[in-house]
């Protein structure tokens, strides 16, 4: 019972910090510039890994899907069958998984080292609210970045699937693209982008909370990074399921 209470209390504190900081950041005049800077910096860091992770994932998915449709002699439905899963699950899921590992580590480490080096106190002493500048902008930047990377991830996974379906399994290129877009609905794209935004918000809340509450020196930073990454990854997978449950 006390474990549940402490988990709920930590979740509430995360939510409160992220919400208060994001609102303060949104109200500050330099919000747009800072968020754009953060998003660009994190985006460049995550772009390569997203492409390099999603392309093999898309290819592996197509490889196993081909084995299944080949057994029933219905290869023509391969692109039709994989399109919704690529859009609704693989692209947003693995994009946020990559963000959880890369962006969350980076943000938690950055804020934790600012905290332990007393830079956050210095910001406060200068009359600047550190929650708006340090926390809020990072949370918002993840909310902006996740759907943008999702688009890149989608093309990357589709590229991996194309490689298997067209280059290896000799499905005509035109059949592949027509099949891929034939079953594509606006709802799926909106759902995928919305899911990324929600997961981006959750990831931002988690990593900024652990960074902002880091204590001690090097070991405190280590703990902040580890907790942030673990909780972020677990949150991506569990929230993904519950979002599907709620919206599908």
């Amino acid at each position, binding site marked *: 019972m006390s474990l549940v209470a402490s988990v709920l209390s930590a979740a509430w504190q995360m939510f409160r910090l992220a919400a208060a900081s994001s609102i303060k950041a949104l109200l500050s005049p330099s919000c747009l510039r800072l968020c754009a800077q953060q998003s660009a910096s994190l985006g460049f860091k995550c772009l390569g*890994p997203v492409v*390099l*992770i999603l392309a*093999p*994932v898309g*290819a*592996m*998915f197509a*490889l*196993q*899907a081909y*084995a*299944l449709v*080949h*057994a*029933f002699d*219905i290869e023509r*439905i391969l692109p*039709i*069958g994989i399109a*919704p*899963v690529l859009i*609704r*699950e693989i692209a947003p*899921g693995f994009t946020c*998984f*990559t963000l*959880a*590992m*890369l962006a969350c*580590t*980076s943000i*938690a*480490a*950055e804020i*934790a*080292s600012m905290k*332990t*080096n007393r830079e956050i106190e210095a910001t406060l002493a200068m009359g600047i609210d550190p929650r708006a500048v340090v926390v809020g902008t990072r949370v918002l930047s993840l909310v902006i970045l996740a759907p943008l990377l999702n688009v890149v991830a989608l093309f990357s996974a589709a590229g*991996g699937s194309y490689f298997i379906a067209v280059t*290896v399994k000799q499905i005509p290129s035109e059949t592949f693209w027509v099949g891929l877009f034939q079953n594509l609905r606006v709802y799926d794209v909106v759902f995928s982008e919305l899911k990324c935004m929600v997961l981006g918000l959750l990831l931002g809340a988690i990593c900024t909370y652990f960074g902002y509450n880091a204590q001690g*020196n*090097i*070991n405190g*930073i*280590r703990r902040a*990074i*580890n907790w942030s*990454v*673990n909780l972020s*990854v*677990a949150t991506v*997978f*569990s929230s*993904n*399921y519950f979002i*599907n449950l709620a919206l*599908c």
Partner: protein
Amino acid sequence: MLTFLRHTGLATFAALFQSPFWAFSQCVWRLLIYSLPITAVIAFFSGAVLLTHAVSALALVGGGPVSGYIVALGGVRELFPLLAASALACRAGGEISSELAALKLGQQLEAVEGMGVNSYRLLVGPRVLACMVGSALLVPISDVIGLCSAYWVGVYQLSIDPGNMQESLLIWLRFSDLAVGMLKGFLFGWLVGIISTYEGVHAKGGANGIGQAASRAVVRSMIAGYLLSFALSYAIYGNSSLG
């Protein structure tokens, strides 16, 4: 990097024979304890999501009740091993690299070398070996949890007949699929061990260096692992069908 690989290879080999069994098993145990909860969470929810999508995809051709095939094939062959190894990369990889980075930046690695102890044999070799063994052990655990969650969601959430569900989950599953998954886990674990220890031992630049080392270790081992996994899948399943 080549010098590091040579030292690490020797140290890992030495850890097989020279490291006391209890020290090595403690290392594997610690790694499993660290990674198991997150692996369980990931496998549980992935199995559930995979089945939900399989049901909706196969509903197009009236094959909802046989959707367990997709979980058995896609999950056991690809997704569960990959996610178990990813969990190890993010939990144990991050932990190992940040631990070694903290030792390096606190000049404790130099102190160990100064005492005449080979730091590779003491700190690197057992960790790489533990990652390999731990990752291979996490894969079947992840498979079981994923399949159970798919069964649970199929039967209790989607109201599929329990007998159909059980049959569709298990009928095309081969021991070779489980073995390939474990092989993938073993090799992915080797990559996680090598990359995490390398990043930890070569950390630079004060407190920020720890975060950078952990972040680089996790991402690089993930990318290398996914590419390796694809190469293995292509080599093994590229020309095969379900059997």
